[in-house]
């Protein structure tokens, strides 16, 4: 993957497939420690301990059409190649937490990329789910919660073009200021 934001899009698809009504995406950067934490947390159907162990394996997938699942292994590799790590916690019927830690000063650090586009796509393509996007830089935080957006919008859907265009700028501008 060329950008970590694409890994986020990919891992969040697993939460969608797991039937999660609420998906939280956390991006937390510390510029003094040179660390970046990316978390994808859901309240979907969860996995058993055996499944958790096997999703790290590229030759595991829940799909029946093919026998490989590269999502988690690619994300893990992106983290580990910087000197970071990946952790998965999951419980059947409760949900799954995927957390990856990156060392941003490593030469092998993949840039975060266009995370606003990822969040916009997740929200507008899955209007039946709720998303919380939390982005923090050195303690300054921006939160975008679709439950709040839906309360404002009433019966105007989140995937209305004008709303989706506003949404990407809203996320972009509010995350950019965190880095200033």
């Amino acid at each position, binding site marked *: *993957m060329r950008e970590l934001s*694409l890994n986020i*899009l*990919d891992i969040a*698809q697993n939460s969608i*497939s797991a039937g999660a009504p609420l998906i939280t995406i956390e991006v937390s950067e510390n510029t003094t420690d040179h660390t970046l934490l990316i978390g994808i947390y859901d309240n979907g159907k969860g996995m058993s301990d055996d499944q958790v162990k096997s999703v790290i394996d590229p030759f595991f997938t829940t*799909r029946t*059409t*093919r026998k490989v*699942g*590269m*999502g988690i292994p*690619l994300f893990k590799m992106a983290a580990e190649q910087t000197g970071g790590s990946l952790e998965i916690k999951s419980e059947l019927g409760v949900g799954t937490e995927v957390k990856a830690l990156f060392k941003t000063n490593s030469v092998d650090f993949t840039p975060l990329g266009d995370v606003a*586009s*990822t969040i916009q*796509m997740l929200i*507008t*393509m899955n209007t039946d789910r709720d998303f919380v996007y939390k982005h923090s830089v050195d303690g300054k935080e921006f939160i975008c919660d679709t439950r*709040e*957006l839906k309360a*404002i*919008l*009433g*019966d*105007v859907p989140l995937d*209305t*073009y*004008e*709303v*989706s265009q*506003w949404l990407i*700028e*809203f996320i972009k*501008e*509010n995350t950019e*200021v965190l880095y200033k």
Partner: protein
Amino acid sequence: MKTLAELMAIKEATKQKMTVREDTGDDAIRVVVGMATCGIAAGARPVLNAFVDEVAKRNLKGVTVSQTGCIGMCQYEPIVEVIQPGKEKVTYVKMTADKVAKVVNDHIVNGNPVAEYTVNAVK
């Protein structure tokens, strides 16, 4: 900077335009973009965005753009399927955002699939 107050204004403006929501019933054209790991890694995100933009720009009614999982030919990703009732499904392969305008114009608007972008052209 964009604020939630602006969203309220957009809502009011959209509500007035939105009479009855367009009927995307039986004769709707569906554009489906493969968004599994393989599709995403190959560049499906800008392709999907380009379809959403083009459909909105041309104000096309009865066209839905959605995502699906792995279509099963990972080496040809990004893959896009155009599904129209009563017609054979058309599968576009190795799509890019640049190719989207032509697919929308020739195929979705004018009913002529872009043969050189389809899976039949590479097989």
